[in-house]
């Protein structure tokens, strides 16, 4: 029998997070600081609206691009929060989570051989999706000393005549880094000069601490060359509902919608109804969760400082990305030993690209009690390690 499997797919490595979690699952009684999703239940008024949609018999497909009401609310949200104006029937595609939107955007834009610039460390899907769409991936390893922000020089250095797309994600998973307005303005000129299009994954946009998120699409001249990816998973703690969206120029959204129509049909109908409620009446939920995350963030940073583990202060998402190079272990060795000796799960930084080597990702989407308990174990591990 022939080997039926596509050769390109075989070359793609499974996610490094997956690999590590498979090991963790075998360890009895392990406690986790590894999960990359909120610990809050979806607020009840949002869930209730999803249930109500079922009761009303909303069990059919919606239009391919998503419910009109939802797209209108997405436009309102983008305008109210980030000062970008979109038209609901031209610039919005509702997707099955932000992940689908990323895939659709890449597939709609990449021609074979186009170079896709990806800042790393980053979420695990960008590179395989770009490769599968026929793109050539060029990574920019971001630096701890720059608080993992993308600089003008780094971007300039990565660009070749074949460069077409820049994928970036701020607030960032796994580093928690953000880009402020001045940072975005610096790279904006390079993007325009080299006529690039940006896929800006802003899924953590509502989780910034101290400063409000700025979308690169809100800068003059950028809306027409940016696909903003956002969604409900992180903002409203709705990961399981699988609901996201892309906002962008009409011609690109039109092509993305075409692929989405053939591949997916539409995002889950009941999730879309719940999404309308979230956008209309969920602003207080965001504040509630953000305040809680911020308190946990301060707690984790302080504990790391007490342990003597250096970590820049992340101002977004719900991760800290401490620097463990001082221990003389690779990220994977560090995480494996921590798991075996103290039964705590954290994710090795290299799961998010080579530039994550020497770092670990700690999620603080856990209660203070859980964090306290787990970090006490981390401290134990370090003290034992240093004593040897």
């Amino acid at each position: 029998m022939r080997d039926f499997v596509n050769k390109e797919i075989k070359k793609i490595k499974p996610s490094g997070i997956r690999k590590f979690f498979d090991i963790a699952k075998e360890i009895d009684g392990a406690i986790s600081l590894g999960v990359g999703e909120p610990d809050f239940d979806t607020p009840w008024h949002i869930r209730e609206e999803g249930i109500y949609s079922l009761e009303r018999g909303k069990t059919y497909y919606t239009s391919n691009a998503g419910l009109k009401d939802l797209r209108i609310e997405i436009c309102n949200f983008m305008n109210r929060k980030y000062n970008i104006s979109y038209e609901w029937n031209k610039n919005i595609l509702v997707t099955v989570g932000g992940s689908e939107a990323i895939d659709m955007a890449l597939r709609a834009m990449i021609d074979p051989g186009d170079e896709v610039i990806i800042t790393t460390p980053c979420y695990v899907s960008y590179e395989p999706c770009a490769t599968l769409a026929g793109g050539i991936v060029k990574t920019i390893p971001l630096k701890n000393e720059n608080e993992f922000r993308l600089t003008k020089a780094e971007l300039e250095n990565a660009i070749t005549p074949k460069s077409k797309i820049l994928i970036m994600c701020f607030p960032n998973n796994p580093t928690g880094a953000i880009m402020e307005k001045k940072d975005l303005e610096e790279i904006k000129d390079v993007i325009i000069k080299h006529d690039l299009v940006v896929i800006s994954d802003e899924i953590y946009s509502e989780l910034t601490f101290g400063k409000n998120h700025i979308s690169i699409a809100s800068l003059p001249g950028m809306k027409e060359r940016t696909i903003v990816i956002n969604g409900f998973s992180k903002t409203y703690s709705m990961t399981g509902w699988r609901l996201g969206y892309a906002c962008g120029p009409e011609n690109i959204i039109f092509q993305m919608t075409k692929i989405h129509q053939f591949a997916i049909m539409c995002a889950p109908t009941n999730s879309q109804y719940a999404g309308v409620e979230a956008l209309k009446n969920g602003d207080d939920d965001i504040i509630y969760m953000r305040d809680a995350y911020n308190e946990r963030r301060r707690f984790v940073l302080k504990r790391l400082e007490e342990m003597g583990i250096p970590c820049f202060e992340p101002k977004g998402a719900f991760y800290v990305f401490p620097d463990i190079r001082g221990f003389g272990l690779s990220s994977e060795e560090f995480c494996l030993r921590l798991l075996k000796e103290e039964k705590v799960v954290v994710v090795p930084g290299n799961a998010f690209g080579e530039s994550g080597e020497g770092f670990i990702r700690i999620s603080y989407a856990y209660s203070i009690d859980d964090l306290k308990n787990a970090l006490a174990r981390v401290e134990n591990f370090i003290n034992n390690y240093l004593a040897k």
Partner: protein
Amino acid sequence: MENKNRERILKNLEFNSRIDLHDLAIMLNITEADLANEIADMEKEKIICGYPTLINWDNTDKEQVTALIEVKVTPQRGIGFDMLAERISRFNEVTSVYLMSGGFDFMVLIEGKSMKEVAKFVFDKLSALESILSTSTHFVLKKYKDHGVDLFTEKKDEREMVSA
């Protein structure tokens, strides 16, 4: 101290009054001394009025019943409802007294050992007070949620280890 911090102190204490103040100070990015002062101030200002523990007595061997009593009264000249509310509040059996809008005036929460004991309280003590026009007693059969705490469902982490 800014109001925002006060609110966060209160929210955290309301959820868990046993929270370690050392931890809470870190979480709020203030010093432990400032936090202690702020809490002391709020105690003085009667913003923080106590630190009781939420107990589900149903899970103990202790026999206990809770009743809500709707009370209609004639307000007294010059002092309105306050004097009477204070009198009702003095009884040890009474755990809460609220002035209500709508069809009756006070909602009184009573805890007693038995229905009989509560009934005795209503007859002998409450109804006997002058200005009380009528009472209507409702016994609690089962408590599901109290002070924002779900007493029945155990919260467990449903999250799977996924690649996110």
